[in-house]
């Protein structure tokens, strides 16, 4: 009896997934058709001569950071209607949708295709198709595991540089000497590995009086950042600073510092990476000291690069985005502008 019911339920679930899947696909196809029609209308009607036409295949809605990136790209296009035309595709976290979008962009004959690859592999064929059609591919904020000559350039942050800048900020805050601790991101994530490498190398090379007495992973989460910091404070009561690979862990660490009866921002300084709104609030309250921004507002840089590619100008293989540094002194001025 139990088994029968279970199988019925599973069957029902399977059928419903099928239906949902189909539904999604039809919708997708419909939107593709629409896009194609629009493109045809474009070709037939207005002369797109001077205009820069770009297709952008976004991953989808994944995090606040990505939403900010999407908004930045769309906003730039909306503000420059005479210069650029944006064809935007939301892939809903699926590679097949991104590939479909890219193929449709090729068919429409856009000037440049931008893509934030949802995964690293499986892009060779579709990128090659774009190359054959003479359309340069621009990777945005994530890399793809393909031959270098299949894409024109990669636009994104340099995590190692972020670590180095964080180290310089830390050194400045604590006067170039003292014991500090480091809370790492998820083991194996490139953001964690590179931010650690950059920070540790910079400290070792230029600041011999600063000692990193402990380094542990906090998995990029607030709760674990707090727990790790609690432990650090007990084994090393004399630390003067903490470096976190993202802002959320720093927010957790701040709570731990308070519980230990110390003042975050004064007794123990904090330096973290990302630039989320929460850390700005903490900086305004004087509980955090510094954040190195990992900039999602890539719209202007993306279109500038695309324009260069269209004009046939030389573009570097890695266009590094400009990451700002914000301290507790400057936080109050910019907090209202923070988009994410």
């Amino acid at each position: 009896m139990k088994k029968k019911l279970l199988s019925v339920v599973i069957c029902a679930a399977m059928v419903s997934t099928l239906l949902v899947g189909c539904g999604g696909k039809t919708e997708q196809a419909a939107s593709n058709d629409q896009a194609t029609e629009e493109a045809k209308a474009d070709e037939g009607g207005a002369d797109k001569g001077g205009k820069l036409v770009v297709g952008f295949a976004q991953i989808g809605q994944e995090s606040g950071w990505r939403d900010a990136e999407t908004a930045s790209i769309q906003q730039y296009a909306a503000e420059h209607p005479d210069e650029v035309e944006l064809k935007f595709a939301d892939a809903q976290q699926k590679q097949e949708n991104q590939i479909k979008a890219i193929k449709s962009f090729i068919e429409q004959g856009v000037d440049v295709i931008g893509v934030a690859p949802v995964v690293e592999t499986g892009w060779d064929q579709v990128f090659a198709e774009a190359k054959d059609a003479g359309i340069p591919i621009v990777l945005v904020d994530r890399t793809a595991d393909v031959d270098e000559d299949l894409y024109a350039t990669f636009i994104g942050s340099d995590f190692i540089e972020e670590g180095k800048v964080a180290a310089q900020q830390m050194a400045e805050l604590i006067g170039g000497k003292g014991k500090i601790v480091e809370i790492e991101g998820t083991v194996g994530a490139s953001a964690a590995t590179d931010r650690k490498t950059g920070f540790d190398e910079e400290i070792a090379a230029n600041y011999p009086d600063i000692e990193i007495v402990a380094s542990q992973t906090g998995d990029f989460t607030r709760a674990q950042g707090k727990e790790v910091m609690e432990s650090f404070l007990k084994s090393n009561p004399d630390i003067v600073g903490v470096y976190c690979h993202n802002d959320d862990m720093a927010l957790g660490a701040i709570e731990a510092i308070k519980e230990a009866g110390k003042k975050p921002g004064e007794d123990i300084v904090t330096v973290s990476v990302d630039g989320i709104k929460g850390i700005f609030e903490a900086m305004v309250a004087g509980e955090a000291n510094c954040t190195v921004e990992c900039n999602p507002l890539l719209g202007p840089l993306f279109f500038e690069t695309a324009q260069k590619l269209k004009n046939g100008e030389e573009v570097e293989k890695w266009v590094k985005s400009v990451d700002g540094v914000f301290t507790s002194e400057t936080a109050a001025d910019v907090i209202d502008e923070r988009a994410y």
Partner: protein
Amino acid sequence: MKKKLSKLSENQWFWPIVIFLIIILFNTIMTRGEFLRITIVDGHFYGRVIDIFRNGGKLMILAAGMTMVLATGGTDISVGSVMAISGAIACSIIKGVLLPGLNGSVAAAIILAICAGIVCGLWNGFLVAKVKIQPIVATMILLVAGRGIAQLITNGKIVTINSDAYYFINGGYILGLPFPLYIVVFLVGLLILFVSKTAFGLFLESIGCNSQASKFAGIKVDKYLLAIYTISGCFASVAGLIESAGIKGADCNNAGLNIELDAILAVAIGGTNLMGGRFSIFASVIGALIVQSITTTVLALGVPAAYIRVLKAILIIVICLFQSEKFQALFSKAPKAKKKEGVA
């Protein structure tokens, strides 16, 4: 004296306590006494042992609820997602995003979050008891969907709040001791009293051993199943409040992630058979303390990040060996001390 000790060791909670003390002792030696040091900071106790009790609070509560579910031969893997839901609801209400008419009342937030936990538990209980879906599949629905619901409530963002009253749930102190400890003592104490003073516990064991036979013996199996899944959901929502209060925000992607496995592990370390039957809530709570102290140990020893999981696994294997009767028999010369356990 010897007789007393052997009688004591027959209790299900005897070995878990011994293991817990060994872990504390091991840490004390490794850190040259630093581990046991307790100082007074800002009028409350401060030290690693206090941390174990405070950070272990949510796991102790989950383990208590989970013990009863496992005793009936079921399982509830949705507790982590229920934690995320309760945290999301509480933080959104306090921030005024959800139900702004409540003016960010902390009391209302807590009550509604716990109500949500009860609803989740009722749903699980309904699927298991009435629809007769296997417990692991039935609760898997909420494991997946629950986190999604939580993300819908918060729009996929981390909701940060700044309420000292809410923070008190995790970071507050009464008489120098952390507040989560009082929640644990209250909830678990109530549960143990209820189970030991009424026939409820006996019925659960009976259902776990043979639900068919229990039914014929006149036990209303469905009603009891519904009740324990509801209790488990309710406890999970309290754990969710503790977790989100600690970070002053609702982090739906990570709150209670994989904690159902820790809770089941805690019950197993406590010596309760996962197939159902005899159980001890107190032993599971000690089991939760052991799981938490393993984390604290790893942090206190400063193990490099890449080795943490392997070290945890090794510690758990050693603990499970200690719990195995065959392994214990190797050390005890009197095999007659064997317990009549594992009726299932």
